[in-house]
């Protein structure tokens, strides 16, 4: 019985909570990718860089706030910085759209052209990040680091295995639920949200119905700013901010969006969880968990790790391949030709 509890606590602490947090962070990114794909009809290669830039802006604002002595008690000050960074990034995105994407929409450019332009935006943002915060990592987390600490839990439960819950993890999961819920309310219950979905669904008919396309485009970028700043900051708080680690999120984010079906918000969330848990489960060393959960005679000898963590993102790719082979439209998508 104790073994079972220990095993479950170990799995919760090492696999389930980190998986939920990572999946939520991915979902913020994948939702942005899928929104841009659905409404603006292109795969945004600058998306990871946008998240990183948003986080960089938040870090600068947070440092400034900390300098003024403003804090949130046990919560990180970055939460305020995050709220301030959203409008900044919304302006950056809308400005980029005005300067570039709008033109290509007008001339009805091919999707490849949009992707190339977004790659150019990626290079520019990459350079901008290097200028703003430099290529090195930054720590910007303050407040309480843990909600449940290893020692505290052991003392309380008397179990050998600790349960650890970081503030950043709890915040990530909580904010993901809140933002996800708000996004669904917006898309399904408001006139603007409905117009956005209609515009994504059938652009010509939406125009005939009186939808203002410029407004939809602006709204989309505002939503993307909210999602990418929130996701980027939470990822940075959880894992420590390094400007170029976000590039490694691009593939899992795309994979998550494709798994769920490009253009489908619900799919993006489901896809993110699938990608996150596959990554963690396949690179997880199961030895300890199985040692607790299986009868002693069956306890494994090796680490029971399927893949080394170096190949984490290969799993995203593998999932992507399987989806493309079996169901290219994704879980919730309509076929995209």
């Amino acid at each position: 019985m104790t073994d079972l509890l220990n095993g479950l606590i170990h799995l919760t602490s090492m696999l389930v909570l980190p998986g939920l947090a990572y999946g939520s962070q991915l979902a913020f990114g994948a939702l942005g990718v899928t929104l841009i794909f659905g409404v603006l009809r292109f795969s945004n290669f600058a998306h990871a860089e946008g998240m990183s830039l948003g986080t960089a802006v938040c870090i600068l604002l947070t440092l400034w706030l900390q300098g003024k002595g403003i804090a949130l008690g046990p919560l990180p000050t970055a939460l305020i910085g995050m709220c301030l960074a959203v409008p900044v990034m919304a302006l950056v995105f809308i400005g980029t759209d005005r300067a570039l994407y709008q033109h290509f929409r007008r001339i009805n450019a091919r999707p490849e052209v949009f992707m190339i332009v977004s790659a150019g935006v990626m290079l520019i943002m990459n350079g901008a990040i290097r200028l703003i915060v430099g290529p090195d990592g930054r720590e910007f987390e303050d407040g309480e680091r843990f909600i449940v600490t290893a020692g505290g839990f052991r003392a309380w439960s008397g179990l050998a295995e600790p349960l650890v819950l970081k503030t950043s993890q709890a915040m990530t999961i909580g904010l993901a639920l809140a933002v996800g819920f708000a996004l669904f309310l917006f898309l399904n219950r408001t006139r603007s949200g409905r117009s956005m979905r209609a515009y994504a669904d059938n652009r010509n008919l939406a125009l005939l119905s009186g939808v203002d396309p410029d407004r939809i485009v602006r709204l989309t970028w505002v939503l993307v700013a909210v999602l990418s700043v929130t996701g980027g900051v939470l990822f940075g708080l959880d894992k420590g901010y390094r400007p170029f680690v976000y590039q490694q999120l691009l593939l899992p984010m795309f994979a998550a969006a494709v798994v769920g079906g490009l253009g489908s918000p619900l799919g993006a969330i489901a896809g993110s969880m699938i990608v996150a848990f596959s990554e963690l489960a396949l690179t997880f060393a199961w030895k300890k968990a199985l040692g607790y959960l299986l009868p002693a005679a069956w306890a494994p000898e090796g680490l029971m790790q399927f893949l080394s963590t170096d190949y984490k993102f290969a799993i995203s790719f593998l999932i992507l391949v399987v989806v493309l082979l079996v169901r290219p439209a994704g879980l919730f998508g309509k076929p995209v030709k």
Partner: protein
Amino acid sequence: MNRRTTLLYAAMAAVLLSVALLQSWQLALTIVNLCLISAVMALGVNVQWGVAGMFNVGTMGSAAIGGLAVVLVSAPPVRAAWAAGGAGLLASAAILVLTAGVALAFWRWFGSRPLLRGGAVAAVLFSGFLLAQQWFLPATAAIEAVDAASAGYLGGLGLPVALSWLIGGVFAGLLAWPVGRLTAGLRSDYLAVATFGISEIVLAVVRNEEWLARGVKNVTGLPRPVPYESDLQSADGVQTLALWLGLPLRDLASILVKLAYTAWFLAVLGIIFWLLERLGRAPWGRMMRAIRDNEEAARAMGKDVARRHLQAFVLGSAIVGIGGAMLVTLDGQFTAGAYQPLRYTFLIWVMVIIGGAGNHRGAVYGAFLIWFVWVQAETAGLWLASAATALLAPGNPLRAAFEQSPAQLRYVVMGLILVFVMRFAPRGLIPEATPEHQK
């Protein structure tokens, strides 16, 4: 060749010549050699984007696997490593092949029951992979333990290095085929995401599998297709030439070696260029352009669009692979850590776009121009930074940030070039000549 093209090429030649005269011949030749290699890669991308209209974000993977081919073909074999782990490695490879065969058979058998089929295939693959690991892990550990400081990998076949360029092309083409197959007929976004993914995976393999090519420990001292500087310095003819030219012997030897590389690369570039030009004029090229310009019409006329796309994709990737192999040969070492998407994928894209997509002369020109700008951008960046911050007070943090990171500005410059060309001159500096369209 029209006047504009001639003028542009002449200007580029003049700039490079002025580098040679003002700075040094060695520097100029170093730049030219990398320009030539970039030009080969740009031609590969141009076949995909310019000719076929496909967006490939995995150029880095093709370049890296081409570079890997140099190691596998030309490095001296490490017999002790083969003795230590060769058998285990082959055993695990055999298990993997068997697994794949069984999985394929299951896939066929359970055709009518998708759930059972998926489960069975997954179970077979999973257990086969775990089984293979039983031999693979000890074998690679043994290989990596053999003379770890200088070897610790299987080595290559010890064949002439120039052969590896061809093999590098074949490797890159073979890697591209399944990716192209997988995304054929789907929206272009899937190709982009898939190529982006596969190139990251190639990189992860190259970095982490030390038994294969020493991972981030690098393989150095790869054989060269040209003589060594020290041998040249002791050659009589070279000594006479140095006296006659009035150049220091060391400089002359270094220039001669670089010139020899230039000759090799020029020959390869020339052959590829000539083949592509011929291909472009052949029915294949006309059909590719027809598909690119109006896919629907081409499909309606019964053209197998997916098949043509696959051909262009594999061909382009193979050419990039050749370029990647040449680059590793020039460096004389395989540096797994050096492969970055910004440098090996997006920079090549900037070259193709600015040069003029669809026109091979344009792509080559773009490669020269952009590589030159890339190398010189640090200087230019410094100048730009001081110009941009001239109005700011000396202690200003923004000014400090700019002054510290002129090299970082290269990315901004490249990105700006890319979007400006796409926005204002989408046909590039040397636009594609399309007589059949102007009629």
